[in-house]
C-alpha cells in the first residue's frame, strides 16, 4: 500500500513536471512567433551587417502610425544590381516584374481596437529593439515580446507615459 502511494506520488510529481515543461514549450513557440515568409529576407544582413537604419526601408516609422513595409521598388533600387544571381532576389524580381505585391506574414499584430502609433514611440526615443528585439541578429524575424496590455502598461508606467484607457483603446 505504502509503496503504491509512493510510486503514484513519484509518477504524479514527474508527470506534473513534464506537463508544465511541455506547456511552457508550446507557449514559447506561440510567444516567440515566427513564420515562413514568401521571400526569405534576412534582417541580419540588411540591418546587422550592412547596418542600414530601420527607416531606410520602413520609411514611414517617424511620420505615421504604421512603420510601413518597403515597396518593391525600394527593394529593387538596390537589387537591380546587387546580388541579382541569388534565388531569393530572382524571386523578388519576378514579383516586381509581374506587378504583384508580396504578401508578407505578419508577426506583430495588435488587435483592431488598439490605437498604436510608431511615430509617437520613435519620437519618445524608444529604440526599435525594445519591442521588436535585436532584429540585427535575426536571420528570420520572430516575435520576442508578448505585445499584451500588461507588457505595454509596464513600460508606460515606468516612463511616466499616459495610462488612460483612451490612449490605446479606441
Amino acid at each position, binding site marked *: 500500500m505504502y509503496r503504491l502511494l509512493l510510486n503514484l506520488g513519484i509518477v504524479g510529481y514527474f508527470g506534473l513536471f513534464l506537463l508544465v515543461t511541455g506547456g511552457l514549450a508550446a507557449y514559447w513557440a506561440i510567444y516567440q512567433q515566427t513564420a515562413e515568409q514568401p521571400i526569405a529576407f534576412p534582417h541580419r544582413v540588411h540591418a546587422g551587417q550592412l547596418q542600414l537604419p530601420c527607416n531606410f526601408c520602413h520609411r*514611414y516609422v517617424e511620420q505615421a502610425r*504604421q512603420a510601413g513595409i518597403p515597396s518593391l*521598388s*525600394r527593394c529593387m533600387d538596390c537589387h537591380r544590381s546587387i546580388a541579382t544571381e541569388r534565388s531569393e532576389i530572382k524571386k523578388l524580381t519576378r514579383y516586381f516584374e509581374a506587378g504583384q505585391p508580396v*504578401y508578407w506574414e*505578419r508577426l506583430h499584430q495588435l488587435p483592431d481596437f488598439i490605437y498604436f502609433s510608431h511615430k*509617437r514611440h520613435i519620437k519618445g526615443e524608444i529604440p526599435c529593439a525594445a519591442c521588436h528585439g535585436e532584429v540585427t541578429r535575426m536571420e528570420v524575424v520572430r516575435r520576442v515580446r508578448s505585445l499584451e496590455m500588461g507588457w505595454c502598461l509596464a513600460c508606460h508606467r515606468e516612463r511616466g507615459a499616459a495610462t488612460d*484607457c*483612451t490612449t490605446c483603446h*479606441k
Partner: protein
Amino acid sequence: MERRDFLQLLGIFSGAAILPGCGDKRSAGKLVSYLVPPDEGVLPGEALYLPSTCGECPAGCGLTVRVREGRAVKLEGRPGHPINDGGLCMRGQAALWRLYHPKRLQRPMLRDAEGQYQPISWDEALSLVVEGLRQARQQGRANLLLSGRTTGTLAELQRRFCRQLEVEQLPQFEIFSHAALRRAYGTLFGQAELPHYRIDRADLLLSLGADLFETFVSPVDYARQFSRAIKQDDFQWIHVEPHYSLTGANASERLVLSPGSEAALLSFLLRWNDSKGRLPTQLMAAVPAASATETARITGLPQERLEQLAEQLRLAERPLLIVGGIATAQAQGLQVALLAGLLQQQLGMVGELVDFARAEGYGSVGSLHDLERLAERLEQDRVGVLISDAAPLAQAPGTLELKRKIKRAGLRVGLCELFDDAAQQFDLLLPISHPIESWGDAAPRRGLLSLLKPAIAPLYDSRSAGEVLLGIMHRSGKEEPGQTYQEYLFNAWHRRFDQQQLRQFSEQGFLTLPVAAVPLRLKAEPAARQLAVEEVAEVVSAAAPHLILTPSIRSFDGRSSDLPLLSELPDPLSSVSYGRWLSIAPATAQQLQLQDRDLLRVSVGNWSAELPVRLQPGLAASVLMVQGDLLSEAPLPIDSRSGELIRRLDGVRLEKLGDAAELPILSGSSSQQGRGLIPDPVHTEEPSPDETRFYRAHPHKDYRWAMAINLELCIGCGACAAACYAENNVPVVGRQDHLQGREMSWLRIEPFYDDAGRASFIPMLCQHCHNAPCEPVCPVYAAYHNAEGLNVQVYQRCVGTRYCSNNCPYKVRRFNWWQHRWQAPLEQMHNPDLSLRDRGIMEKCTFCVQRIRQARDRAQDEQRPIEDGEVLTACGQSCPTGAIVFGNLLDESSTVYRLAHSKRAYRVFADLGTEPSIYYLRKG
C-alpha cells in the same frame, strides 16, 4: 490640347491621387507591400482628405472625402465652399450609403428575351446604343436624352452629344422643378430662373410655403445664412404655411393660413404697400382686390395680424420674401409666384436680396408638362432610343403611366446607380459611377464651379455619365476633344482658366467666378396680361380636410429613400423612423378618437390608402399631412399652367379602421412634461454647492473637454445625428429593433412641443457628466471618468450588465443586442479609427475621442497644446448653422468657455447634480 498641357493639368489635379485598393481577403494577417511608394504626403494608415461635390440633391454642396487605404470612410462639408461652408445635411452624410449600397449596379446589363438581365461588356453595350440610334434615325423615330438637373461641363457635353448624334435633349427632369416660380420670374423680369435669396442680408424674412431647411433649392445654404442673420438683433422671420414644416418650426413666428389662400394674402400685402408706388398702375389694376376683412376671412388669419404683417413689411429696411414649396405646388401656384415676384419688386428686393446675377442655374430644367409630352410621344410610337436616368420613372406621378408607356420606346437605356425597381424599367442598364468616384464639375450657382475628382477608384465596372456619352460619340465615329472624359474636362478647364485659377480649383475644390450683372426691368404689360388670365379662385370653398403631401428632409423627392441611414434617422418633426404615417392635428384626433399608430383610411375618388396616424401638435385641424415620397401612388394632378405637381388633395374622406399599426416613434413624449429640458419657462436650478456630495471631485490638468450647443441656432435638421452614425460606425439596426426601442443612435434630436404647438429641438447625447451616475454602478469599471473630463466606456471591460444605462438620466447609452452586421459592401465605410462593438456591449457618444487623439498627435508633433477649434466633433463639423461648439473648458480664451459662461447657458437636469459637460444655450 497639347500633351504637355495635359500632363501639367494632370499634375495639378492628381496630387495625392488614388491609393491602390488594399484589403482583399488575402491580406488578412498579412502585410502587403506597395509596388511603388504612394505619392508624397500619402502615409499608410493616415487619412487623406480630398475635395468633391455632393450629388445627393441639386444644391451642389462642397465635400471633403476622408479616404483611408483607398476607401472613402466619411463625407464632410467643405469649409469655405460658397454653398455650404462646412455644413452638410443628413442626405449628404448618407451619400456614402449610396456609394457602398448593396444594390449598386455593378456592370452593364441587357434584358434578354425572357426578361432577365444578363451582364454584357461596355463595348457591347455602347455598340447597342449606337446601333439603336442609327436604326431609329432610319425609321424616323426620335432619339431622346433625358437627365436630371445637370450643370457645368457635363451639360455642355450633353448639348454637344445631342447636336452631333441628332438626339433630342428633353428639358431636364426634377420633380421639384420650381417651374411656377421660374415662369413667373420669366414673365415679370425676363429671367426664367431661380434667384439666389440673400437671407443673411435681410432684417425681415417672410417665407410663404418655401421649405427652406428641407428641400427648397439649397437647404444647407439657407440654414447657414439663417445662422448669420439671427445673430443680428433686429432679424425677424415670419413663416406662413398651411401645414407644419421644419422651416415653420424654426421661424420667429409661424402663421397658419387656409390651404390655397396664399394668393389672397399676397394680393392684400401688395395692395397695402401700393403707396410705395413702385409698380405701374396697370399692373396694380390686375392684382385681385383684397380688403383686410376679406383676406382675413379667406386666409383664416386674424385681421389685426394681417395688418400688422403688412406694416412690418412696409417698415422693414431690408425685407425679403421667399415663396415656394407647397405655396406654388397648387392650382393657383403660378399666380402665387407672379404676385410674389411683384411684391418683391414693390418692396425693392429684386436685384439685391433676390439676386438674379447669382441665379441657381435651373434654366434648363423643365416641368411635368415635358414629361406629359414625352408620355404622349411614347404612346404614339414616335420614340426610338430613350437615354435617361432612373429618376423620372421613380418619381413621375402615377397618372402619367410612364412605366407602362416607356415600354413602347425602341430601346430604353438607363443610366443608373442602383439596380432598383425604377432601373428595371430599362432594357439596357449602364452603371453610373458615384460622384466621388468620378471626374467632373458642377455649377450649382452662377459664378461658382465646384470640382468633382475621384477620391477612390470605382468599386465596380461603372462609368460617369460623361464617359458614357463620350463613349457613344466615339463609337459613332465623332471626333471629340479628349479620348476620355477626364481629358475632355481638362480641355474645357484649360480653355477657360489660367494656371493660377486651375491650381486654386484643384486645391480648394471650387472656383468663384465674376458674374455679370443681369438687366432686370419689370415687363408690366405681359405681367398684367398673365395676371389677368389667372382667375382668383374662391379657394376656401374647396372642401376640408385637405391632404398635403410635403417634401421630405430625409429623402428629398424620394431619391434618397433607398439609403438605409435615412430610414434609420427619425423624421425631425414626428420622430418616426421606418414606415409611412399620416400627421393629423390633435383636435382631429380627439374628434375621431384616434391616438398615435391607429389606422386611418384616407380616400379621394377611387383612390384610398391606409395609414397609421401620428399626432402633430400645431397642425391645423383641417389639414392632414403625409410625406410625398411615402405616398407616391396618390393621384396628384399636374397644374396645367405651371406644369408643377399639385401637392394637395381636397375633400379627402377619413375612416377610422379600429386597428393600430406598428410604427416606430422614437421620441418618448412630444411634451417636456414640465421637466424643463429646454428652459422655457421651467428650469430647475443647480443644487447649492454645500449639499452633500456623493462623488469625488475630478482634477483636470490641461484639458477639460466640453461642448456648447446653441439652441437658438439648432434647427433640428438631424445632420449631426447622421454625421455621428457615419463617423462612429453606429450600426443601422432596422425597423424591428426600433419597434422594440433598441435604436443605437449616439446622438438624437428630440422635438418638444408646447401647448400652442410651437416646436423646440434639443440634441441629446452623452452629457459626459462630471458626476456621472453611470460610473459608480459599473461592476467592472468599464465606465470611468478620465483626467480630461471624458466619460469613457471601455468596450473590452464591458460585460453588459446595463446598470449604467438604467442609471443614466439622459437615456443616451445604447446596448448592442446583436452582433450587428453590415451587409457587404457597406462594411467598407467603417472608420478604422474606431473599433466595432460586439454583442452585449454598451456604447455611447465618446466626444469623438478619435478626433481628440488625432489633434493631440498633431499638437505633440509641433510641441504645443491643442488649440481651440482644432478638435471638431463629427456633429459639430456637420452642423449647417454651427450650433455645436467643442473645446477645452480650462482654456479661458476658448469659444466653448465663453459660451459656457454666457448668461444663456444652462445644463439639462442640473438639479440632479450630475454636472454635465454639455452646456446648452437657451433661446433669446
